[in-house]
Structures are given as C-alpha cells and as structure tokens.
C-alpha cells in the first residue's frame, strides 16, 4: 500500500521534473533563437550600413562636440536664434494640435460607429473597423509626401497626414473605451425618443470623455514628435528649419543647437503637462 503510494508520488515527481525540463528547454531554445536573430540582424545591418559600428562608435561624440563647441563660441546668438525660430516651433505644435483635434473628432465618430451595441449601422461595424485599421497602417510620411506634390509645401500636408493617422489610431483606442461604457443611459434616452446622435451625445460621451481626453493628450505628445520629423522630411514647421540649418553645415551649428534646445524643451514640457492632466483625468483629482 505504502509502496504503491510512494511509487505513485515518484511518478508524479518524475513527470513534474520532465515537464519542467521540457519547459526550460523550450524557453532556452526561444532565448537562443532570439539572441541569434539579434546578433545576425545587427551584423547584417552593420554590413549594409555605410559606416561600420565600431568605427562609428568612436565618432559618436564628434558631431555633438563639434556642434556644441561652435554653439558655445556663439552662445550670445542663441537667445536671438531661439526667438527667431519660435514661429516655426509654434507652427509645429499647431500642426500637431489641429491634427489631434481633427483626428479625435474623426476617431470619436468612427469609434462610436464601430462599437457593438452603440453603432448606428450594426451591419457596417466590420467596414468601419477595417477602415480604421487601414488609416492606422498608412505611415504619415506617405500621405505627407503625396500631398506636398499636390498642395505644395507648408504645414497643411503634414497636418492632414497626421490627422489621418490619428483618426485611425484614436478610433481604435476610443472604441475600446466606449465598449465598456454603461448601456443603461443610452437605453433610457432612446426609450424617451432620443435620436442616435442625441443618445451618443448625452448618454455615452459623458461616460467616456475622461478616458478619451487622456488618450487624445497622449496622442498629442506623439503628434508633436511626428510633426517635427515630418517637417524634416517634407516641409513645414521647425523640422524644415532644422533641415536647412543642417544642410548648411558648419557655421550654422548655433542654429542647429537653438532648434535642438527648443524642440527638447517643448517635448519635455508637453510630456510633463500632458502626463499631469492625464493622471488627473483617469485617476480623479
């Protein structure tokens, strides 16, 4: 009797150990594959790069030190230059602001149209979802560059591109929030004869606004960065000024530093302010 019991527990022990070993082996293999992928990937990227990693790493500080030393020598120019580039900075922030605003409105509409239980046309839910997926998938640079061809330079192509992407991205996040919204106010409103837009406006929006605003603020942070980078590739805002200053090269590094400082300060300030408000919105006061 005791013999069989101990034999049984021995079996269990052996089974458990075998199982644990197998699991360990699987995670080991996974880790190995990951390490191999990383190493070979870096080697491949290194081989296809113009400059190698090991030669580049010594030069890493060359450019920043060159830039900084020139800027230090011309430190007196910096405040004036920052003042000069302020309008471009405002343009960059405005691009992000308008794009977030438009994207949030579009995203809100699309999200309500694609949330089960709230949708105006339930049969079209998959259509609106795929539409949002497609809008999210198109990188901003694609739309921006195509629009520059049609509309010419300036801030508008970047703004439309970012707004388009934001609509898709926020639409998805918004619909996750509105999916969890309480349906009772909506039912109450429709039983009182409210139209779809009325029941959304009065029944759903008050519930979801804090979370939606928080997501929109987060998106605004992302969009400021995107707007700077689009300016560099395309046109408009401080990114474009940075490109011109960089192309000039030596002699204009004080401008480069002024733009770097402005951009850095803006991003940090916007990050801090937005995370403060997001905290307040989501967790209450």
């Amino acid at each position, binding site marked *: 009797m005791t013999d069989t019991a101990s034999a049984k527990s021995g079996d269990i022990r052996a089974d458990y150990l075998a199982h644990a070993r197998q699991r360990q082996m699987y995670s080991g293999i996974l880790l190995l594959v*990951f390490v191999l*992928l*990383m190493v070979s*990937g*870096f080697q*491949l*990227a*290194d081989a*296809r*790069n*113009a*400059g190698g*990693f090991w030669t*580049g*790493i010594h*030069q*890493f500080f*060359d*450019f*920043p030190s060159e830039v900084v030393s020139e800027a230090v020598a011309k430190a007196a120019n910096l405040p004036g230059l920052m003042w000069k580039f302020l309008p471009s900075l405002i*343009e960059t922030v*405005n691009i992000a*602001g*308008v794009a977030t*605003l438009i994207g949030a409105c579009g995203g809100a509409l699309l999200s309500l149209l694609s949330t089960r239980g709230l949708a105006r046309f339930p049969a079209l839910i998959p259509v609106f*979802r795929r539409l949002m*997926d*497609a809008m999210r*998938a*198109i*990188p*901003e*640079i*694609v739309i921006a*560059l*195509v629009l520059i*061809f*049609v*509309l*010419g330079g*300036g*801030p*508008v192509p970047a*703004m439309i591109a970012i707004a388009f992407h934001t609509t898709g991205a926020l639409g998805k996040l918004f619909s*996750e929030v509105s999916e969890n919204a309480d349906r009772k106010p909506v039912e109450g409103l429709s039983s009182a004869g409210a139209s779809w837009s009325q029941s959304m406006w009065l029944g759903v929006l008050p519930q979801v606004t804090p979370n939606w605003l928080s997501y929109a603020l987060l998106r605004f942070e992302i969009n400021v*960065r995107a707007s*700077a*980078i*689009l300016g*560099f*590739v395309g046109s408009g805002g401080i*990114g474009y000024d*940075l490109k011109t200053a*960089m192309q000039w090269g030596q002699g204009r590094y004080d401008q480069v530093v002024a733009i*770097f400082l402005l*951009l*850095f300060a803006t*991003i*940090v300030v916007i*990050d801090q302010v937005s995370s403060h408000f997001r905290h307040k919105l989501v967790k209450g006061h």
Partner: protein
Amino acid sequence: MTAMISTPPAGTLGDAAVAAFDRKRRVAFAIPAVVLVYLTYIFFAFDIPGIVTNARTDNAAILLSDFWSHKTHVTRDNRSGTVTVAIEGENKGTYPPSRLPEWVGMQDSLTRIDLGKGYEVVYEGEGARFTVPDYGVIRVQPEGRGIRLDLPEGEIPDWINASSARVTVTTPEGRFSMTRNRTETFRYEPGWELFFFTLDSPFSGLSFRELANLAISGERIDPARPNIVHMISDFWNNQMWRHGDVAWALFETVLMAFLGTMGAAVVALPLAFLAASNFTPARSLRFVLRRFFDFVRGVDGLIWTIILSRAFGPGPLTGSLAILMTDTGSFGKLFSEALENVDRKQVEGVQSTGASPIQQARFGVMPQIVPVLLSQVLYYLESNTRSATVIGAIVGGGIGLLLTQAIITQKDWEEVSYYIILIVLMVMAMDSLSGWLRGLLIGQTGRT
C-alpha cells in the same frame, strides 16, 4: 441642530444645483467656442485659402491616373525622322522595332497609331494628322520656324492648345503634341506596365496560361536553367520595378524596427530594475536614471537620427540605433513603472527559500511582469515599423528611402503607389504578427 444639518434650506441646495447647471452649460458652450476660435486662427495661420487656390489639381490628376494606368509614348524625332515606341518614355521600356505593339503600324515614313474608339494618329512625312471621331481630322505641319495647324470648321475646342511653337491635343483616348523638334503621342492603358517581365525578357507579353505551360513543361528557353528559375530571376531582376531591391528595402525596414525595439527592451530591462524604487534603495541612482530616461525620450527620434547618421553614415544600422535610443527611454519608464507595481509576496516567497537577488528577480518578479513587458514591446514593434519608414527616409535605408526618391523624381507615380501598397501591407502584416505573438506568448488573444 441635527435637523438643521440633515435638511438644509431647500433654497441653498436648489441654488447650488442651478449654479452647477449654469457652469456646465457655460462650459458646454465655451469649449466648442474655443475650438472654433483656434480653428479660425489656424485657418489663417496656415493660409488655407492660399493653399486651396494654389493646389495643383493637374498633379493630383496625374497621380491618380498613374496609380492604375500607364502610358506608352510614340515619339518621332522630327530631325532624324526615327520613331521610337517606349513605355513611359523610358529607355528600359523601349520596344525593339521587331516587336512593336499591334496598335502601332510602321511603313517607311508612315506611322499609324491606333488609339482605339476611332481615334487615330498618323505621322506622315514631316507632319501628322489626328482623326477625332465626331470632330474631324486635325492636321499639323511644320512650317518655317513654327507649326501650322489645320482644324475642321468652327471654334477651336478647349482640348486643343495651340501656339506657333507647340500644339497639344488632349483626348480621353490619348494625348498628342508636336513641337518643331518632336512629335509625340501618349496612349493610356490600364495596369502597371511590365510589372512581371521587362521587354528584354523572353517571357514578356505572354499570358498567364502560356507562362504556366512554359514553367511546367515547355522547352527550355535558356538551356542552362529550367524555365521556372529563369522566370523567377527575370522577375526578381526586373529593371523597371526592381522587385529584388524593393524586397530588400522592405526587409531592411522591418529589420530596423526589430533591432531597435528588441535592442531597446534588452538595454532598458536592467536599467528599469535600477530605476524602480522597490528594487533600488539608492535614491540618487534612481533619480539619475529617471532623468536619463526622460532625456533620451525628450531628445526625440529625429535628433537622435541626425546625430547617429553623422557618426555611422547612412544605412539600416543607423536607423536601428536611432529607434533603440528613443525607445530605451520609453521602455525604461514603462518597465520601471511596471516593476514598481509588482506584488511583493511572490518575491518574499522566493526569498524565503534562500534565493539570491538575481534568482529573486528571475523567479519572483519576471513571471509577473513578462506579460506586461511583452505586450508593450510588441505594440512598439508594430508602431516602430511605421517609424522605421520615416527614419529610413532620413538615414537613407529601407523602403522609406525608395519612397522619397520615387516621389522626388515626380514621374514614377506607379512605383510610388506600388511602394505605398507594400508599406501598408508590411505594417498590417507586422500588426497581425505582433498580435499573434502576443496571443502565443501571453496566452490571450490580442485585441482586435
């Protein structure tokens, strides 16, 4: 006294409610008003009216038509009299004289171009004539230093643009233009030309069925290799569309995103332990690391990309490192927050068995945070695929570079649309891949 508190005068409560409603109503009107004012300001700051009037709608039309069609140029050099038929007017797409498309007929000095639906252009001698149904025959003849235009009776229609130096006729079936030096006809056809095989390949112009036959049975066109290998190599090395290079570029973009994201996660994880208050008692170290994360994040991908491309030159490695830099900051912040929310009990349980700090981290902490970390890393992987497209345009690597180059030349719009479609497919594929991996590794299906 107590009665006083529990039932305050009805007037105060009512007043408070009315005041609250008033405030709400004011806010409900104030917010849209502020938004409207802001948009009005933007309307003028961005000069929307100017942009609307200056919009190049003709460019938009070119772009749209190139997305789904291509044009073949039939060009006569009026000096030498030679006629060439070339797709998009490019050297790579020039038809050899022995294999002209069937809608071009050449006899001595006479070239007949059938544009379909009765539209026909004939180059004859020095001049040309264009037959337009329901209108008549347009004759163009060089004369002196200019060009003479003979039209049917009546007013000149707006689709004919004529000056003494240049005549342009635009019809739905094709476009004709003549200057002193050259006579040119464009014929538009749907589809992307030579997408599979260029004209120098023996497989060009064959139907799918013929190709399949050749691939499976058929005699070897090139005795050295089977037809299917020949076909794949001709497709891969297509000079016009460069499928091989494009595939490499896509791979490079994904590679940048992968290396950047995963590298950042690997770098950020140990740093996050040092920045989490429940693992690192040293306050100053935590402070330094947190500011480091903030700094790296705040400097932004754009600035990192510029600094790195100076050090490492253009290429995918630079892009990977730029993503790695920026995301180390983001991951460090996210991971250390996740670590601070770890349940202490499991760690204490592992500790009570005499485990070392590393073992505690491995068996007490990691199982709790791995799902959170993985889902964040995978989310970033997908979003970085998109960023890698933009970064590629700056550092000169991947599909971003091809796209910007194609757009800057402003003529290969069919290539632009090809790249756009590929980029969207790539991002969607990475999206599904990261969702699938998330489901596989964490054991719950990704959000749809």
